């Protein structure tokens, strides 16, 4: 965008008294970035970073799906030799770690980075440079895992990396360290983004947007962000203690020296179970957004849904022991976790009832996003039902660590998060790219995904009951698992085809799809007020909100807030509960330091699996980049 040269610019030009076209041009200049590769590396625009995050996460989805296909080839028939045990163990470890840490959590946060500022009506995300840092760290962690895998030092101890198998005595070479340090990378990235989301939602909302009027997707991402902050430190303690056990001979997990192998499991699952909800709650937010728009009415029980999101987020922390029922815990302790695991069905049920009533009393219009929501109902509710089964200790003792559980969590995660995610991609794609995705390909995409998924994963319930344990690279001919496995593999390839179609549709539509305009679905939330794709400044005027679906409440024209600078990056800070305007605050400019800090952090993280001293000189290196990052600049104080 060229600089506005029409009028001499006063030092502090406000957005009052400017023609619309000029206002737009000047705001775009102020919030835009330098052209070229350097500008690309320096940008702190939440939309560019969010887009980058989404594309990267989808790339990891494709890689993770590719290795899953290899697993299904290997298991299609008994005693096959497509891959050997060593490679297979690396593959299932990398598949699980990749899908959880590099795809599912980041892709949800990516949508949050892109959409939350738009949905709450602000011009950039809070702590914008931290967002850039978060992306680079995430990218480094992901590349680290996959390069290790290609170099045959991919972790082979499962995505849960139980000690002692991953410990100093049994873990091979640096493989478990790669797993442990990949955790550190992705958790740093996730927590940084979580902090940004919380602050953006609490302090950057458009004036008038009360807590109860925040869109449900934003609420879901807020609850998720809090869960990230409380859950992720536990797994970082676990993975860092593991590295210490392996590198400098501490004995956190060594029973013969007073450590405990079970301690690792507690730490891991204290994170690991909330992790499931960290993936699923954003999915419910997407479902709420889609249902609202396509049933042409606000979600029934807006507050009830918010309460159930918060309740799910809290109860999610009281479930972790149901992953450990077979470890021989005392009855009373284990039973508590049965009750908690059963209880979490209640808020989830409440949400589903609210959605059904919304669709029932609305006038549903079926487009691809809503198709995927129907798929979500079919698959996720079934996964929820098997979830109630594994909450029961006796049933769990049979099906734990079998293909029944593999089926269960793929129903919950693919049904509860990936189906909504694909629906959400079809839904928000016009906002992000300015073009609609093809409905025809979308319908094909849905049916292939729906049929492929169920053919691939439903038989696994039965395989688990028939005694097939998880994480086996092959199985004998005399146990009766061959036909169901073959069926499952066929389904897996149909599912893979649906993803190929999905990616194809995105690539094609991004270039030749019909132009969307700002609000192609006639939706009610603020992101549809901005252009498609939004300009660097998101909104020409900061809107004033009076309703949970502002565009439906004020159909002719939205009230606006004025008085914000157009030639400095300035955002409006509002109060937490009522969103009354408090001050105008400076929002950071582009900077190269987040990238440099991320490079320094990457060097320190990777080196510290080889030498404990890297933690020392690595900290100094990171410190240097942080000095650059925080070097004092003449910056105006925030103003009332």
């Amino acid at each position: 965008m060229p600089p506005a040269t029409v009028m001499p610019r006063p030092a502090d030009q406000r957005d009052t008294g400017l023609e619309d076209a000029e206002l737009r041009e000047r705001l775009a200049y102020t919030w835009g970035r330098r052209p070229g590769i350097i500008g690309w590396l320096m940008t702190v625009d939440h939309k560019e970073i969010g887009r980058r995050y989404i594309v990267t996460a989808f790339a990891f989805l494709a890689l993770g799906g590719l290795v899953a296909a290899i697993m299904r080839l290997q298991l299609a028939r008994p005693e096959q030799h497509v891959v050997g045990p060593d490679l297979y163990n690396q593959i299932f470890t990398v598949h699980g770690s990749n899908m959880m840490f590099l795809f599912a959590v980041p892709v949800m946060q990516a949508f949050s980075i892109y959409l939350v500022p738009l949905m709450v009506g602000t011009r950039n995300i809070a702590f914008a440079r931290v967002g850039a840092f978060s992306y680079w760290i995430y990218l480094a962690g992901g590349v680290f895992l996959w390069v290790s895998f290609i170099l045959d030092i991919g972790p082979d101890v499962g995505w849960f990396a139980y000690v002692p198998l991953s410990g100093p005595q049994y873990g091979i070479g640096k493989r478990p360290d790669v797993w442990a340090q990949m955790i550190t990378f992705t958790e740093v990235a996730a927590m940084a983004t979580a902090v940004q989301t919380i602050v953006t939602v609490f302090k950057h909302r458009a004036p008038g947007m009360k807590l109860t009027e925040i869109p449900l997707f934003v609420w879901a991402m807020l609850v998720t962000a809090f869960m990230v902050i409380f859950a992720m430190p536990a797994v970082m303690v676990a993975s860092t203690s593991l590295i210490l056990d392996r590198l400098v001979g501490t004995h956190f997990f060594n029973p013969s020296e007073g450590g405990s192998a079970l301690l690792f499991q507690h730490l891991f699952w204290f994170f690991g179970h909330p992790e499931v909800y960290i993936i699923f709650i954003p999915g419910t937010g997407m479902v709420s957004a889609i249902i609202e728009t396509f049933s042409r009415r606000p979600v029934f029980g807006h507050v009830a849904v918010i309460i159930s999101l918060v309740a799910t987020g809290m109860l999610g922390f009281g479930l972790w022991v149901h992953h450990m029922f077979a470890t021989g815990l005392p009855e009373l302790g284990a039973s508590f976790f049965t009750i908690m695991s059963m209880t979490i069905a209640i808020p989830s049920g409440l949400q589903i009832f609210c959605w059904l009533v919304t669709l029932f009393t609305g006038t549903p219009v079926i487009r691809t996003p809503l198709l995927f929501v129907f798929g979500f109902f079919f698959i996720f509710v079934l996964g929820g039902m098997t979830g109630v089964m594994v909450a029961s200790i006796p049933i769990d003792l049979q099906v734990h660590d079998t293909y029944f559980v593999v089926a269960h969590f793929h129903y919950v995660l693919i049904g509860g998060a990936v189906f909504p995610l694909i629906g959400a991609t079809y839904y928000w794609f016009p906002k992000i790219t300015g073009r609609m995705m093809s409905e025809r390909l979308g319908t094909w995409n849905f049916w292939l995904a729906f049929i492929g998924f169920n053919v691939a994963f439903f038989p696994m319930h039965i395989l688990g009951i028939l005694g097939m344990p998880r994480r086996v690279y092959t199985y004998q001919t005399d146990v009766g698992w061959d036909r169901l496995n073959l069926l499952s593999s066929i389904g897996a390839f149909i599912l893979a085809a649906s993803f190929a179609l999905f990616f194809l549709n995105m690539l094609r539509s991004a270039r030749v799809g019909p132009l969307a305009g700002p609000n192609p679905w006639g939706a009610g939330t603020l992101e549809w007020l901005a252009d498609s794709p939004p300009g660097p400044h998101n909104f020409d005027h900061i809107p004033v909100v009076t309703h949970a679906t502002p565009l439906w409440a004020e159909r002719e024209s939205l009230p606006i807030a004025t008085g914000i600078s157009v030639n400095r990056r300035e955002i409006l800070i509002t109060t937490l509960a009522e969103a009354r305007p408090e001050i105008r605050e400076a929002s950071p400019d582009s900077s190269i330091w987040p990238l440099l800090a991320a490079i320094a952090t990457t060097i320190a993280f990777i080196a510290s699996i080889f030498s404990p001293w890297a933690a020392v000189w690595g900290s100094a290196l990171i410190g240097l980049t942080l000095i650059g990052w925080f070097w004092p600049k003449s910056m105006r104080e925030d103003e009332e």
Partner: protein
Amino acid sequence: MIRRLPYVFAFAGVLSGCRHWQSAANDAGAEAERIWSLTLTFTIVLGLIWLAVMVAVAIIIRHRRRPPFSLHDARLDGAGHRRNSWIVGSLLAATVATVAILTVLSFMAQRPLFAGRAQTAGIRLIGHQWWWEVRYDGATPSEMFTTANEIHIPVGTPIRLSLESADVIHSFWVPSLAGKQDLIPGHNNSIELLAQRPGVYRGQCAEFCGLQHAHMGLLIVADAPDAFEKWQGAQRAAASQPQENDRAKGAQVFVSKPCALCHTIRGTPAGGKFGPDLTHVGTRAYIGADVLPLTPGSLAAWIADPHGVKPGVKMPPVHLGADELNAVTAYLIGLK
């Protein structure tokens, strides 16, 4: 009564057409039977709830419409709010009630599971990468014996197994008899088996334990009480002295080659503790933790190249001449 209800998983049997000796649905143990009844109850109740949700979705799909989108067709009015609240409220109450009932059922089913934990165990099961060491206890040392990968138990008598691990975490699971329980280094776990029908039941390690986790199987043989006594008596005895020439030569090879460093054959100088006890290896149905059925051919193949059969197994290949290999195989097969 419930377990006689139409078999939910019957069609799986039709699809697979093999014997299910490792199936939770083929319940032959007291614990497995309790769990299978509970599983069926849960499946039916939860399946009906799922169906109800699907019916609701189907009705919604029938009421769809196909207008173009516009900002102006969206409704904001709260008509029917009271009725909708009642619907959601009563569905929620029904959910709470269902969840409570299922929780109570689950608690009732778990009581026998935890009741006997304090009892002393008659068998020590020790997990190794990737095989099972089985030690039978007795009143005197002469009544104790060690075997591997095959556990015999008498039908109708509850038998408690203590579960230990020599290296990483394993999990003991014989679905037809009971749920699983982990073998964790530094922890004392145990499990009770009560077989109600004689038979051979297959089990497998259920906790990922490294390279050959897939090939860590074991058999539980539930014998009639007198057959069990006979088996136990035979196992307590030391290995028989080979009579034939080639078997005597095989015994000689076994103790003069590295075999004896890892394996014990009671009554001979072979006393290694690292690998499975082979005193009565000829009585077992399988070798290599349930990888191959025990035949002279498979045993010879295993000894000649264990890594060809089970890549990564801790047993090193031992170089033997053809006649040595045949002699050792004959010797071991004859250890009844």
